[in-house]
């Protein structure tokens, strides 16, 4: 056993700002990224407090006031094909659309990062076998795979989540594997091995801190893709089912009114566009803030 150290009082020491503190201060100085972050925050708040913000019941329709244009008295963004208030439906739609965008990515981040880090750290034939299996999933275009999976599982929110999660595991695992492989051979990992630490401890203390940043940023860039895919599934009738307000589904049901009220049926698409652009710019800002020499 090691002897205990010479008694040295733990005097206060000067601490440098850590990596994440530095990233945050760089991020704060990037107006585009901060703007995108505020938009994302606003969308999240809108989803959470939808019942308080929405002026009308998003499910209550009236045949007499169908397809009113934006600006109609009492319906600032008009009404949909069943006479429901568009503004309220768009606000409520943020709930399901964001949920369908973020949840599959989070689930895939957990599974994909685990697979990738294990494969990358193990190396050798373990890596080869794991990554070849992942490659099989890569062979399918992601849209096709999502449609095929949710088509096979049946429509519904849960099945949509499952199929989107499966679609996002391979790309995240790939990124995790390549980052981990590059970290694994660094001298500080060798030094940790030379100090007698086992693989789990090395992954936890030496590898994770150096790989989670890039993996997380990549996963965040998938949120926009996930939202668009989820909207696509809903559009095809595979994801969310009517009468739930969801932007993709709204786009689908309003499609028939394209020639009557073109502005109206562009609104859900505009929301999808705004959200995915905001997520993408936030991701870009984070990526450049994290691109430190250290």
């Amino acid at each position, binding site marked *: 056993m*090691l002897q205990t*150290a010479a008694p040295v009082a*733990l005097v206060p020491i*000067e601490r440098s700002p850590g990596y994440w503190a530095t990233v945050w201060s760089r991020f704060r100085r990037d107006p585009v990224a901060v703007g995108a972050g505020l938009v994302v925050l606003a969308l999240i708040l809108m989803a959470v407090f939808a019942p308080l913000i929405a002026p009308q019941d998003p499910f209550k329709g009236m045949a007499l006031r169908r397809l009113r244009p934006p600006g109609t008295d009492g319906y600032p963004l008009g009404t949909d094909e069943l006479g429901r208030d568009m503004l309220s439906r768009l606000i409520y739609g943020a709930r399901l659309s964001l949920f369908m965008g973020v949840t599959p990515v989070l689930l895939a981040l957990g599974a994909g990062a685990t697979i990738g880090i294990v494969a990358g750290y193990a190396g050798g034939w373990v890596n080869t076998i794991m990554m070849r299996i992942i490659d099989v999933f890569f062979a399918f275009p992601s849209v096709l795979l999502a449609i095929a999976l949710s088509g096979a599982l049946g429509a519904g929110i849960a099945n949509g989540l499952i199929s989107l999660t499966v679609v996002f595991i391979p790309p995240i695992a790939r990124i995790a594997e390549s980052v981990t492989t590059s970290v694994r051979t660094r001298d500080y990992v060798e*030094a940790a091995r030379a100090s007698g*630490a086992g693989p789990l401890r090395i992954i936890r203390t030496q590898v994770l801190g150096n790989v989670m940043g890039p993996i997380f940023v990549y996963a965040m860039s998938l949120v926009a893709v996930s939202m668009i895919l989820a909207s696509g599934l809903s559009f095809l009738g595979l994801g969310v089912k009517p009468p739930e307000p969801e932007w993709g589904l709204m786009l689908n049901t309003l499609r028939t009114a394209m020639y009557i009220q073109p502005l109206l049926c562009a609104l859900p698409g505009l929301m999808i566009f705004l959200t995915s652009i905001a997520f993408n710019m936030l991701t870009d800002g984070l990526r450049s803030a994290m691109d430190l020499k250290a």
Partner: protein
Amino acid sequence: MSTPILEVVDLIKHFPLATGLLGRAGSAVRAVDGVSFAVQERETLGIVGESGCGKSTTARLLMQLIVPTSGAIRYQGQTVGTKALPLKEFRRQVQMVFQDSYASLNPRLTVEDSIAFAPTVHGVSGDQAVRKARALLDRVGLEPARFAGRYPHELSGGQRQRVNIARALAVEPRVLLLDEAVSALDKSVEAQVLNLLLDLKDEMGLTYLFISHDLEVVRFMSTQVLVMYLGRIAEVGPTEALYTASRHPYTTALLGSLLSMDPDNRRTQAPLAGDPPNPIDPPPGCRFHTRCAYAEPVCSTREPDLGGVGLAHAAACHMAHPGTGHSRAAGRVA
């Protein structure tokens, strides 16, 4: 002679080359090809040689960071990896300092966390490990209050290498492997770190394996020197004997490459021409015969050995041993 603290017997490491369907089966880079040596406690064994001669591979094999093709490593007479001496315990007794001071520190950990990591692996509590890290920082000449909370990129090369030395010493090892540990530092900082290493050695009773391509530094640090060429030992002996009366023409040529301190005695000719041969396909016989000024037919057919075990000063050269068939065998190398 007492049991050496570290002993290496016939260590071999071949890196197999990836072969396609039509590739030659069984070809490999023979990075380390039959190396044996022993280090006595509190000695410093210097290992020198050109790039690619297997110095660093030997260090990584010793640390068990890569698995040897064959051969044994013994610590105080016990084979590493057996019940009597598990790998984890061996790694507490033997530690390593790497060449690249920046790459060998985790950029996301503060200096004190990097140093405190190894003791916690061996069961020291986090609080104790941090205390120990600060005491070691103090010992290697870095004021804990100023440096403990810093990240590696905020330190200079010399400061980082001091941190690496502290990190290696944190588990109280008996043997330190220094793999080109000062090679990347500029000369004045190098001298400070070398003096620190000498002080630490006296103070803690350490044994060093000092790997370097710098002949002057090795001479300054070492009590014994081992010269490697293409994965094999060319010559081994006490430092002064080897530097003043080398017995292997390769050692002589290496020492000849040192710049003369006397301007009237300038070196006009390069002592060694060309690069070492390819370690995938080393020359038959003596591996040095393709570049040796004294090469004779016997050198390309018979491989010389170090000649008998336990010799204090030995050279793997036909000229150093009588009766080998080399015309200069009886005499000494010029």
